[in-house]
């Protein structure tokens, strides 16, 4: 009889073991996003820094965590985190692939950023304002991206690490009507990751 009791106790303890643990971490600026955790029956919304959830016996419940606990469980994973992607915006004179003087300065920051990374990939996407035909702008946006790619390669980056695309008038930084000259839309966006 005692043996059975012991078995039941072991079984219950085994079942109560944590099957999964989830925690929201603060962003660099202290804010946080949100996750939902579901066991198929119930779901828990976690939308604050260190809001946590654990799953036991197949059921998820809300709990909380703190930086010390997170470090204990996730320290190695967090230490392996890559440097986050960086974004740069370069602007052009109207209907040209010529950078504005401010953007020539900004361009140099790309190299500062890459120096921090052991390996890198660079994405260059060109855009235009809405002045001119869509076809012309599609071509112009690609020319801008190509010009920046060539310049990056000339200044020492590996061509195989760079991808380019031209988006023409799409995805304006500042939405405008058709045929509007808008300096903030005449741009190339660079992502370094």
């Amino acid at each position, binding site marked *: 009889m005692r043996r059975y009791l012991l078995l039941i106790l072991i079984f219950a303890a085994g079942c109560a073991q944590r099957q999964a643990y*989830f925690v929201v971490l*603060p962003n660099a600026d202290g804010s946080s996003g949100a996750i939902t*955790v579901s066991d198929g029956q119930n779901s828990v919304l976690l939308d604050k820094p260190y809001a946590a959830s654990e799953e036991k016996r*197949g059921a998820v419940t809300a709990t909380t965590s703190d930086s010390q606990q997170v470090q204990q469980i996730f320290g190695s*994973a967090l230490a392996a985190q890559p440097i986050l*992607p960086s974004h740069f915006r370069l602007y052009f004179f109207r209907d040209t692939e010529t950078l504005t003087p401010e953007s020539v300065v900004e361009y140099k920051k790309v190299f500062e950023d890459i120096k921090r990374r*052991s390996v890198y990939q660079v994405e260059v996407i060109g855009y235009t304002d809405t002045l001119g035909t869509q076809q012309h702008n599609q071509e112009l946006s690609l020319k801008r991206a190509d010009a920046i790619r060539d310049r990056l390669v000339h200044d020492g980056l590996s061509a195989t690490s760079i991808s380019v695309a031209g988006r023409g008038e799409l995805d304006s930084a500042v939405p405008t009507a058709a045929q509007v000259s808008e300096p903030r839309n005449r741009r190339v966006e660079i*992502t370094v*990751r």
Partner: protein
Amino acid sequence: MPGLGNTIKYLGAICAILATSVASAQSPAVAQIKTVSGQVFIQRGANRVAAKVGDPLFEKDTIDTGADGSIGVTFVDNTVMSAGPNSEVALDQYRFDSNNFNGSMLTDLNKGTISMISGDIAKSSPDAMKVKTPSAILGVRGTHFAVQVPE
């Protein structure tokens, strides 16, 4: 022999077409390995290769870290993921269209620990990015979170 010159040109063209079709038949890389420490392997189909900084990862790859292993990767949608020791992480599904930033991503954490900072896929729709553990599922609205599946 102008005929021979032409033949060589045609052969060249055929080779170029073949090379292109072979390249496009292979699925595109979905991530790049940025950090590795200790023993980390990538299971790709029947192949098991040691993870190296700079190497690409593909959909369906499984990351396997040893007792002293950890790894950090960055996906093409700018999602950043890292895994601690004794972890098994399968890149079950990864679709991303860099033209409109739409995509979907399903990552299986079979055991161990991961930390993720979501990128463009999570912004495309509330259901686009998910992490599965053996018995629960996590939907990502953004941005930084961590998951543990104890052994």
